[in-house]
């Protein structure tokens, strides 16, 4: 030992430490990468040494290299070794490294559970502290579940240092394992009132006037914070903030982008009907001035956000808004062309009154299209042409000169636009064509109509040649159509009506949630039969399969017979009534086109396009003119109101004077267009509730637990071994099917049942966990019995690392069974390893995709005796192919210490990692477990021999596969086939599939009647495909795999599984 230490210290003298590494890197500025790679080689050598000091030093250096961007996850196992050092110095190096590079995908994390638990309960507070700190960074759902109880205990630690850390880390535990929140809550509440951990309460805050002083301050931080506080106050007291609009607009000129963005954000909340135009005008000025596209794009999105917020609530004049959008199209190089486009579409579709104006504007945009396509750099903005073309086409009846627009849309330059825009051009050219034809119909001279046809026939071939399939297809269809129409025209046949019919029907906007909001009308029973139900004899013939399915059949029969003809007729009537009232049903009566008659459109000057000034959109009204108009209008209204007020005042003279200086109330401002887009898009009787607005991706959603509902017996889960854990999904289904039967009796009962069911579900987590280790001493016998029962009944639940076997279980339900099939019998993957009068060992072998040469053997040790079992040592005689992974430095024959002791009656699980080379053959490894049996009087040394059987199945991992990928795989011809016949199989097909899924780690790709395709993959990536067919009691399995011997062995193992049944 002494020699070892001396040798170690000498070694260390030659090793580089962190400082040497840093110095070295600084001295090798030219060939840093090369130098670091030699350093990594050295580190790899150091990690192979026995000396923990050398290892810790190496890991410390790796942490530094990680900062420089090097992936050091390959050393994860060594990091775990250093973490488990008994010395604080090394332990903290290990934990630091782990906290920097471990994450949920790190597979060795599962090996750390016991080490962390040991450190948490260490007598040295800094061991505990270091473990808590590390854990807070890499806690996984598994760790959270297994260690929640230990951390809970630490919340009452004697040292405030530990208490504080424990309370903080509980938050992480809750996030990863929300079930722990409820039982921990009372204690947590108590701890949060703990006076010791001093968390500063931050002083809140100041009135708006004071904030103004902050914002006017020269200190940029104060300015920023002032704006931030403003936005918080804005939510509660919008009026008081709005009066500081000037100041906030001023902040848009600040040199500091953070401040500008804050101000923008604030403006978003400040706009009202009254000031929207003014604010947007200011913002438009800033758009012009903005340097750098990022800020300008931010401004653009903010303008659109501000205007469109809460369904255009603050827009009083949509003509103005369309003009703003059109003005925004002159932005070069913006990324947000599509945003402007979608606004144009949205407004044009939803605000019917504005369509005429919008169409006129869009037509001008199309005419100016050359401005937009000239430069590929401006590509982003050409997206607006998508909207423009569609609007002009769809609402072409509003066009003054559809022929001109049609011509504009078929210019050769259009072919330089992106494909999806061209496609819209072509399609809408056809709509315009229809409009032009209709316009000229009835004229004696059909010259104009024929010219239009000719125009299309001339121009469309350009698009037929397009490389874009969509464009090509549409263009060639329409070209042929037009050619045909031209023929008819030449024969003087009236075609306009038929062509128009191609695009008939008005597009009505429907709110995205409209369907959901329609309440189920009274008297409508969604469960009622629409057609006559199948006759009794038929259903009997069909299959009286399982017990409870039959009952369900009976049930539904008895119910629908109650519905007589009269009732049906009544319901039909009700439904018709509903439909008549429902705006979403397309009614027979044609909707009347609203004719646009807003004042001011005629005056829009249509000026000759000025090609030399590309930055303006010529021929367009500027949004400013609306601002003026609006001001005038408001002035007028104000004047009128004042007149009225004067009258009133005169009447009220003598009474106190009304203070008139405050801002006018919102109600005073009447919109120029009466638009009620929201109610139009919603069903009349829509429900107001909006509970679906919650973000499904919110990580904190899991914590949405009602803590007030106190459940008396809740306890934190304690780590137990898996077979106890839970219910098979099949059993779950049985439970759920019971309320289903009773469900349909009466409304009230149904509701109650539902409530009950929900309760059940909430309590469930407590049912599945019960503390084994703690209560074991007192009630071991009772508990053991309980456990056995549970083991029989129940099956495991989520367990991260054993995920695939779970998936197998679930798959078997999802894929393998159909609703009416009977529940699956319980299954367990654990098989007996060895047993004597003291101890029983069961084991399961699992691989994972992350490492093609490793499998994990999970062994559950159960103490059957009345004595204490300790110092368990697990050893296996390695073969050339399969080796037990021993910690670095251990000899090839050293045994591994099982990291726990077993009190009487208790069981616990340990995992051992094995490395394997070839996986095509099954293998058996001999091994021995030695342990000390300690009773009150004596202790004896015992041993138990066992044989670990590595089946080929244990190298397979349940991997889902889509049927198309599966088909491709089979077609590839790389797989070799083999087959298997099983006779006398007397079990339902879905049970058979479930067994294969569960015991052999397959997943069902597709199932059709009594035939199913299945898939699995080995840890080394071999594909294994099965086609399982059954008829009578014979099952035939045709199998394919890229490794024939692996396949042969897997089939043998499947055969064995079923020979046991």
């Amino acid at each position, binding site marked *: 030992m002494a020699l070892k230490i001396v040798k170690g210290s000498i070694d260390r003298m030659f090793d580089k430490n962190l400082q040497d590494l840093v110095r070295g890197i600084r001295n090798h500025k030219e060939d840093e990468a090369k130098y670091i790679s030699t350093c990594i080689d050295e580190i790899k050598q150091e990690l192979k040494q026995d000396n923990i000091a050398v290892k810790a030093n190496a890991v410390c250096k790796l942490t530094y290299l990680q900062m420089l961007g090097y992936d050091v996850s390959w050393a994860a196992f060594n990091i775990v070794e250093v973490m488990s050092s008994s010395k604080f110095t090394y332990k903290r190096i290990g934990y630091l490294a782990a906290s920097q590079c471990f994450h949920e995908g790190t597979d060795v994390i599962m090996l750390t559970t016991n080490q962390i638990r040991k450190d948490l309960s260490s007598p040295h507070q800094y061991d505990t502290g270091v473990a808590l*700190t590390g854990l807070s960074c890499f806690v996984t759902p598994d760790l959270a579940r297994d260690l929640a109880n230990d951390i809970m205990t630490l919340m009452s630690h004697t040292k405030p240092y530990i208490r504080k850390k424990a309370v903080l880390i509980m938050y992480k535990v809750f996030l990863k394992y929300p079930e722990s929140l409820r039982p921990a809550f009372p204690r947590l509440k108590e701890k949060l009132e703990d006076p010791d951990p001093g968390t500063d309460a931050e002083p809140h805050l100041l009135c708006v006037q004071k904030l103004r002083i902050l914002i006017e301050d020269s200190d940029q931080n104060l300015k920023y914070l002032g704006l931030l506080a403003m936005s918080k106050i804005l939510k509660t007291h919008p009026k008081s903030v709005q009066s500081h609009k000037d100041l906030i607009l001023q902040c848009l000129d600040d040199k500091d982008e953070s401040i500008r963005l804050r101000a923008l954000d604030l403006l978003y909340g400040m706009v009202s009907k009254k000031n929207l135009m003014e604010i947007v005008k200011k913002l438009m000025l800033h758009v012009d001035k903005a340097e750098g596209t990022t800020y300008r794009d931010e401004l653009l999105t903010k303008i659109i956000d501000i205007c469109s917020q809460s369904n255009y609530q603050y827009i009083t004049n949509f003509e103005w808004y369309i003009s703003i959008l059109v003005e925004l199209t002159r932005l070069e190089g913006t990324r947000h062309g599509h945003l402007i486009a979608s606004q144009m579409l949205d407004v044009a579709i939803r605000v019917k009154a504005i369509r005429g104006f919008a169409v006129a504007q869009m037509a001008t945009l199309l005419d100016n299209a050359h401005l937009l396509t000239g430069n590929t750099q401006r590509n982003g903005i050409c997206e607006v042409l998508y909207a423009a073309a569609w609007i002009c086409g769809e609402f072409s009846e509003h066009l003054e000169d559809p022929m001109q627009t049609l011509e504009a849309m078929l210019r050769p330059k259009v072919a330089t636009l992106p494909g999806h825009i061209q496609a819209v051009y072509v399609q809408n050219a056809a709509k315009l064509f229809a409009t032009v034809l209709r316009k000229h119909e009835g004229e004696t001279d059909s010259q104009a109509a024929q010219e239009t046809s000719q125009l299309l026939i001339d121009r469309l071939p350009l698009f037929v040649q397009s490389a874009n399939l969509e464009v090509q297809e549409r263009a060639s269809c329409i070209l042929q159509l037009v050619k045909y129409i031209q023929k008819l025209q030449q024969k003087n046949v009236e075609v306009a009506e038929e062509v128009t019919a191609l695009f008939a029907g008005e597009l009505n906007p429907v709110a995205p949630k409209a369907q959901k909001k329609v309440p189920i009308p009274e008297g409508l029973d969604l469960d009622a039969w629409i057609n006559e139900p199948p006759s009794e004899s038929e259903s009997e013939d069909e299959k009286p399969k399982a017990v409870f399915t039959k009952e369900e059949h009976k049930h539904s029969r008895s119910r629908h017979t109650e519905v007589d003809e009269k009732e049906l007729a009544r319901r039909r009537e009700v439904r018709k009534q509903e439909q008549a009232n429902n705006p979403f049903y397309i009614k027979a009566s044609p909707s009347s086109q609203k004719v646009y008659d807003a004042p001011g459109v005629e005056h829009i000057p249509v000026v000759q396009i000025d090609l030399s000034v590309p930055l303006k959109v010529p021929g367009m009204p500027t949004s400013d003119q609306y601002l003026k108009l609006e001001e005038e209008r408001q002035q007028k209204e104000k004047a009128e109101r004042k007149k009225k007020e004067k009258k009133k005042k005169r009447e009220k003279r003598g009474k106190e004077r009304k203070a008139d200086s405050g801002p006018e109330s919102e109600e005073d401002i009447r919109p120029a267009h009466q638009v009620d887009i929201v109610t139009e898009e919603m069903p009349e009787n829509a429900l107001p509730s909006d509970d679906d607005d919650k973000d499904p991706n919110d990580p904190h959603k899991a914590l949405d637990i009602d803590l007030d509902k106190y459940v008396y017996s809740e306890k934190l889960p304690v780590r137990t071994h898996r077979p106890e854990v839970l219910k098979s999904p099949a059993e779950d289904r049985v439970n759920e099917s019971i309320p289903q039967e009773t469900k349909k009796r009466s409304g009230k009962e149904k509701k109650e049942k539902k409530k009950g069911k929900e309760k059940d579900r909430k309590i469930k987590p407590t049912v599945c966990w019960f503390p084994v280790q703690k209560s074991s001493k007192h009630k071991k016998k009772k508990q053991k019995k309980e456990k056995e029962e549970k083991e029989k009944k129940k099956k495991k639940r989520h367990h991260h690392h054993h995920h695939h076997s779970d998936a197998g279980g679930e798959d078997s339900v999802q894929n393998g069974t159909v609703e009416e099939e009977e529940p699956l019998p319980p299954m367990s993957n654990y098989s007996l390893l060895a047993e004597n009068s003291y101890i029983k060992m069961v084991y399961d072998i699992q691989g994972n995709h992350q490492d093609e040469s490793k499998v994990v053997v999970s062994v559950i040790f159960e103490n059957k005796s009345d004595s204490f079992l300790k110092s368990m040592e697990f050893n296996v005689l390695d073969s050339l192919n399969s080796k037990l992974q021993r910690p670095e430095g251990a000899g090839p024959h050293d045994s591994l210490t099982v990291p726990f002791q077993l009190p009487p009656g208790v069981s616990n699980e340990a995992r051992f990692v094995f490395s394997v080379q070839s996986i095509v053959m099954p293998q058996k490894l001999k091994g021995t477990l030695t342990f000390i049996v300690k009773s009150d009087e004596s202790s004896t040394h015992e041993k138990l021999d066992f044989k670990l059987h590595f089946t080929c199945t244990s190298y397979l991992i349940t991997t889902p596969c889509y049927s198309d990928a599966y088909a491709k795989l089979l077609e590839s011809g790389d797989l070799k086939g083999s087959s298997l016949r099983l006779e006398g199989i007397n079990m339902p097909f879905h049970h058979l599939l479930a067994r294969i899924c569960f015991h052999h780690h397959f997943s069902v790709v597709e199932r059709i009647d009594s035939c199913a395709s299945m898939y699995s993959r080995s840890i080394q990536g071999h594909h294994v495909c099965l086609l399982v067919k059954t008829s009578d009691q014979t099952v035939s399995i045709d199998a394919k795999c890229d490794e024939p011997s692996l396949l042969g062995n897997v089939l043998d193992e499947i055969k064995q599984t079923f020979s046991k049944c």
Partner: protein
Amino acid sequence: MIKAILIFNNHGKPRLIRFYQYFAEDMQQQIIRETFHLVSKRDDNVCNFLEGGSLIGGSDYKLIYRHYATLYFVFCVDSSESELGILDLIQVFVETLDKCFENVCELDLIFHMDKVHYILQEVVMGGMVLETNMNEIVAQVELQNRMEKSEVNQVI
């Protein structure tokens, strides 16, 4: 919550990185580069808050940073943290470093990244503020260093 703490110098060389949410190494480097790019182009007389980093967090997150001599200390935090609180915390952290290293300079951070981490661990844990009292932080750091020393002495 604090999502990440980055310390880098005026040239963007990382001196300490501490992510409280997992990112692969190359992504971490990208984040450092982006953050450096965002922070370094700002004048010293503008505010210490910055929104709009695209790689980490998104709109709910902001960068709060301080610039000391050759080093940038950048905390990436979500909206639940108080801006002033974090600004203060950076100050506390730096003062603690100053006390532990006696007139801290960039070289101390370069050669003793591990020690800086250990100090930081007493200030922030798993992205949550643990301790803001400098004396308490220094006391805990020193106790642990003493423990380390006694272990070294044992071996010798």
